């Protein structure tokens, strides 16, 4: 447990000293929200499902730069060797990295989601606090598989290009569930109506956290 907290502290310290990752995450999302708004056109009405789609596309794209830096920062000066020789179980490293990614993604969303509501507010018919639950479940699913795959791409020649190529096909179900749930919420449907989608999102997060927990050992060793 001490090692887990230590790893998180280390990563947070590094990330706070070099703010560019976080800033670029948020900035990228703002750009996508802006471009999508131009694509819709002035005065056009879009469905709640489509509004939900725009929100999660923006979040998904911006999460890439956060996930990509998880390991690339370990590679400068071969810091990762220190991680590898330390007597910490690789599963602990995985959970620590996933937690840090989760924290940063949530932090970025604290800016992105309100901004989305400002820019697209007239397309959203209804809001409910369970949006926070949807966000949390999406974040868990996205960071579980994202942390594992970012470990893979960090060991390749083309980290930044490869990460979305490998990640996007695998998480299409997760994004589909989340968009459906959010669309229903935006349309003002009661919680029971989109609860099944949330269960599936939770199942996705559970499956890929487990997969990461067991497979990360192999990935980490090769970095």
């Amino acid at each position: 447990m001490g090692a887990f907290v230590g790893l998180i502290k280390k990563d947070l310290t590094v990330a706070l000293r070099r703010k560019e990752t976080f800033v670029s995450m948020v900035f990228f999302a703002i750009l996508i929200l802006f471009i999508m708004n131009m694509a819709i056109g002035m005065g056009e009405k879009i469905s709640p499902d489509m509004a939900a789609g725009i929100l999660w596309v923006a979040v998904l794209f911006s999460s890439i730069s956060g996930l990509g830096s998880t390991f690339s920062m370990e590679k400068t000066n071969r810091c990762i060797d220190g991680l590898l020789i330390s007597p910490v179980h690789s599963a602990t490293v995985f959970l620590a990295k996933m937690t840090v990614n989760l924290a940063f993604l949530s932090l970025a969303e604290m800016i992105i989601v309100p901004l989305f509501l400002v820019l697209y507010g007239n397309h959203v018919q209804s809001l409910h606090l369970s949006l926070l639950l949807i966000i949390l479940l999406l974040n868990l699913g996205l960071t579980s598989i994202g942390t594992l795959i970012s470990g893979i791409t960090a060991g390749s020649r083309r980290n930044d290009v490869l990460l979305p190529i490998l990640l996007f096909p695998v998480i299409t179900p997760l994004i589909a569930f989340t968009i459906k749930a959010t669309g229903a919420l935006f349309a003002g449907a009661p919680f029971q109506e989109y609860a099944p989608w949330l269960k599936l999102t939770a199942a996705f997060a559970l499956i890929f956290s487990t997969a990461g927990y067991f497979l990360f050992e192999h990935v980490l060793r090769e970095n």
Partner: protein
Amino acid sequence: MSRIRPIGLLSSVSIALFALSIYYVLLVVPVEREMGIVQKIFYLHVPMAITGFIFFFLAFLFSIFYLKRQNRKWDIFAASSVEIGLLLTTLVLITGSIWARPIWNTWWTWDPRLTATFILWLIYSAYLILRLSVDNEGKRAVFCAVMAIVGFVDVPIVFLSARIWRSIHPVVVKTRSIAIEPKMGIALLLFMAAFISLGAILLWLRTSLSIFEGKLLSLEKQGGN
């Protein structure tokens, strides 16, 4: 005395099976009443889909073996299985489109089964892109094994997500359930056997090619310039 190699025997069996299947489908099986002659593409389409899926499952198994044993052989087997599975899935998408054009009046719709197959195709294409992007052999084997496992674990979720979509959304085009006539069933089974034998041959050839490639590379390294 020339000895009979197992691969030669298997190839002869496969050729015979394909010849028999094609003969059976074209001349014995009756023409479907509603869809007409186009329906016959199903006897290729369905067995290819099932065989492709079998090979993705094999890739998943071989990848687990690799992570357990760290034997290079299993990595080659997994990569070859993915290639064959992807080839068959590509053909499934193409034959499906050819069928859909006259029957559904469109090359492509976002029907759940089509969507799920397409996502599957994307996942395993990404696997092959990953293979091209890592130079170190041991590293590539481990990364690809992890990716093949993750991809296959994702398959049930992909199919589930596609099916649930259908229950909530009205279906624009519905797959017509075909009352299987005995002869049609036999045709499907024949093609199934033919494609499995073809897959086995391809797996054999592809893996032995990769093994020779590895030997050649290590010889070149020893020789130096």
